[in-house]
């Protein structure tokens, strides 16, 4: 397995750094499929003859495993380099689909929990953080642009997987019509689709692993390694970073930003119909609501690239002031004026979701500014536990309030207002946490590397 050694993936002189973003995208476009898991939900419920909750648990397990594997695997990824990490991610993510396929074929739901949920979830976490540190090291002058390009792929993965999965289900089950309401594909089609996706993602992710290189002199144990410092020459190891208030303030920032965004994303289709319901009938059709979900996906993806790239000019803390501060205003407008016009509702929601995506994509660069690139991948991995926590908190808050308001299909805009005001409060907490972020105290630096590398011209936020 020496081909996976970090030393074997060091770039030779003349290697173009513009090969690194497609390598990262190959991984992120693949693992981004997780956001399209709902495509299988109705068919899996019918195949296993169970309720929505046991099937939804597959996705939940995968997201929890994402956070845990990113947190615990971050240091390993940093030490062994992006190629080994991408290969492990590819094998786990692909194996998750194959084990899941076996579970569908044999009608064993627990195999989907184990496969897609646990094994695939580990692939998700390792894959998500695998290129981040490398991208920042290749693009020290534009870390926001670099991570924005890759993490945009995670949003884009669902855009590919959703129509592709429907096409595959239709191919293996001639009776399946994805445009029909509550369309159900048979077990054979589900199992074959999982099989094909598993193989396809393995190929694409291994392409990324073959392509990726680390810049010369960035080896973990290389005494002459060049690490890009954060503000004031900061170079902080992951184990030390989690002992700083800055880490936990950024954790709160990410948690609040994601919690608020998920509140809208998870309810997007019913929400737009409920907002424009009068006399029991909504003026927004199911097809239009589906279009709204598509538009939010585009806003999510665009926000990841545009806002993260913008942060290279504005500084990281200022851009989060926008995400959280303007986000508060957007939520208030949505709660108070959202029913006045469909165009206004769609516009406000799109901006909110673009901030949600931007928050994900900008955070690695924020960490680089605070802690340097020494172990930024591992720090990022630990920070992603905020995502797992928000993935639970957001839906619990929104669904809890909506369940208390009435039954799905009978709700109106008034039912959503308490949830939207709660999200305003959540964003306000994140806003304050972001304002409290200061440069890391020198006592946390690893003095063996801190200050050795030259500092770049950075916009101090």
């Amino acid at each position, binding site marked *: 397995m020496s081909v996976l050694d970090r030393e074997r993936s060091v770039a030779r002189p*003349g290697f173009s750094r513009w090969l690194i973003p*497609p390598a990262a995208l190959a991984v992120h*476009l693949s693992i981004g499929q997780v956001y399209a898991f709902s495509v299988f939900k109705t068919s899996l419920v019918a195949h296993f003859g169970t309720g929505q909750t046991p099937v939804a648990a597959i996705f939940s397990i995968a997201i929890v495993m994402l956070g845990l594997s990113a947190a615990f695997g971050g240091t390993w990824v940093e030490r062994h380099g992006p190629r080994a990490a991408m290969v492990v991610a590819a094998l786990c993510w692909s194996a998750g689909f194959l084990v899941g396929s076996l579970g569908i074929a044999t009608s064993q739901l627990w195999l989907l929990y184990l496969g897609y949920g646990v094994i695939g979830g580990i692939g998700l976490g390792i894959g998500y953080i695998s290129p981040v540190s490398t991208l920042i090291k290749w693009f020290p*002058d534009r870390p926001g642009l670099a991570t924005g390009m890759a993490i945009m792929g995670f949003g884009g993965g669902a*855009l*590919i997987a959703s129509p592709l999965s429907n096409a595959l289900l239709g191919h293996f089950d001639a009776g399946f019509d994805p445009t029909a309401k509550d369309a159900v594909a048979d077990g054979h089609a589900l199992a074959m689709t999982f099989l094909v996706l598993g193989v396809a993602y393995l190929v694409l992710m291994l392409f990324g692993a073959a392509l990726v290189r680390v810049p010369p002199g960035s080896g973990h144990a290389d005494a002459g390694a060049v690490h890009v410092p954060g503000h004031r020459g900061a170079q902080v190891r992951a184990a030390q970073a989690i002992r700083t208030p800055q880490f936990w303030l950024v954790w709160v920032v990410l948690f609040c930003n994601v919690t608020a965004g998920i509140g809208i994303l998870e309810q997007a289709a019913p929400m737009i119909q409920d907002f424009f319901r009068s006399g029991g009938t909504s003026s927004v059709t199911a097809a239009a609501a589906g*279009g709204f979900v598509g538009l939010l996906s585009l806003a999510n993806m665009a926000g990841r690239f545009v806002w993260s790239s913008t942060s290279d000019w504005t500084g990281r803390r200022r851009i989060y002031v926008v995400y959280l501060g303007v986000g508060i205003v957007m939520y208030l407008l949505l709660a108070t004026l959202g029913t006045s016009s469909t165009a206004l509702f769609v516009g406000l929601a799109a901006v909110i979701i673009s901030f949600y995506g931007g928050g994900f994509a900008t955070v690695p660069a924020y960490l680089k500014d605070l802690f340097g690139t020494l172990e930024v991948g591992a720090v990022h991995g630990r920070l992603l536990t905020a995502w797992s926590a928000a993935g639970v908190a957001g839906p619990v808050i929104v669904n809890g309030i909506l369940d208390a308001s009435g039954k799905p299909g009978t709700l109106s805009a008034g039912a959503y207002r308490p949830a939207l005001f709660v999200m305003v409060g959540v964003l306000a907490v994140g806003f304050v946490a972001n304002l409290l972020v200061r440069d890391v105290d020198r006592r946390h630096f690893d003095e063996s590397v801190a200050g050795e590398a*030259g500092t770049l011209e950075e916009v101090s936020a």
Partner: protein
Amino acid sequence: MSIDSQAHRATHEPDPGTPVAAVVGAWLVVATPLAYGLWQTLVKAAKLFTG
């Protein structure tokens, strides 16, 4: 390699050592499925204004 030289490379992309075709090819591998997904999503999103 110094940070300065890494940053300096940005003004000379792609580097002479990497064929332009390789860079373009790598981007095409990821851009093609992404373009497919974007198109499909745009078609779906259009129903917001037509459906």
